[in-house]
């Protein structure tokens, strides 16, 4: 895996997406998400270890896009999404579920919870900063 990236300017400067919230219970995956989106993508990133933490931090952070793990202990991804949608700051914000290959069969059910899309794990940390833009644009009705 080449993590040195490709030529170009930071995505956040070009496309307007600035703040990305990630909710993931696995500590190693949180590190990769932060490395990918903050270090390679240049986004301002808020990484949360649980749905509860996301609910607490979302009002102040005001994410423009949320990456949300589906299978988490305590509050699951769909349960977290339902609660996030109750926050005024989350109205119209695209939410993309992160799910493992093994759960792809449940994708339709996952999308019925109001997510903008699904990114299947394992994701590529080099391409992720660009991959999320399609969901951000879709969420904004572009």
């Amino acid at each position, binding site marked *: 895996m080449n993590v*040195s*990236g490709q030529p170009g300017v930071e995505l956040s400067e070009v496309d307007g997406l600035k703040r990305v919230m990630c909710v993931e219970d*696995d500590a*190693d995956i949180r590190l990769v998400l932060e490395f990918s989106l903050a270090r*390679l993508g240049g986004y301002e990133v808020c990484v949360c270890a649980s749905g509860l933490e996301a609910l607490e931090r979302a009002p102040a952070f005001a994410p423009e896009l949320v990456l949300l793990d589906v*299978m988490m*202990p305590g509050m699951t991804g769909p349960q977290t999404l339902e609660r996030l949608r109750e926050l005024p700051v989350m109205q119209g914000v695209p939410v993309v579920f992160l799910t*493992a290959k*093994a759960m792809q069969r449940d994708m339709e059910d996952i999308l019925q919870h109001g997510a903008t899309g699904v990114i299947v794990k394992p994701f590529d940390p080099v391409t992720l900063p*660009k991959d999320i833009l399609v969901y951000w644009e879709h969420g904004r009705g572009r």
Partner: protein
Amino acid sequence: MTQPGDDEAAARFAAIEQQFVAGLPRRLQEIDAAPDAQARYAALHRLAGAAGAFGHARLGELARQAMGTDAAADATLQVLREEISRLVDARPG
């Protein structure tokens, strides 16, 4: 995106990856000590997702195959142990 030849980014990712590999025995313990099938599935699920993100496709695939509850999944778990040992032993330093 990062400019080509960004050694700092590559070094940072390598450090995170080594941290992941160093934590594999702990993940294996978590799988072995799982109180029930659901907990074992969850631990394997997390390992599968993390392994792929670090480019360890074989480890991720083994974890996915071991998520089942049949004899084949148990056999795969043994192969998974061997793969983890190999990766841990291959760590630099």
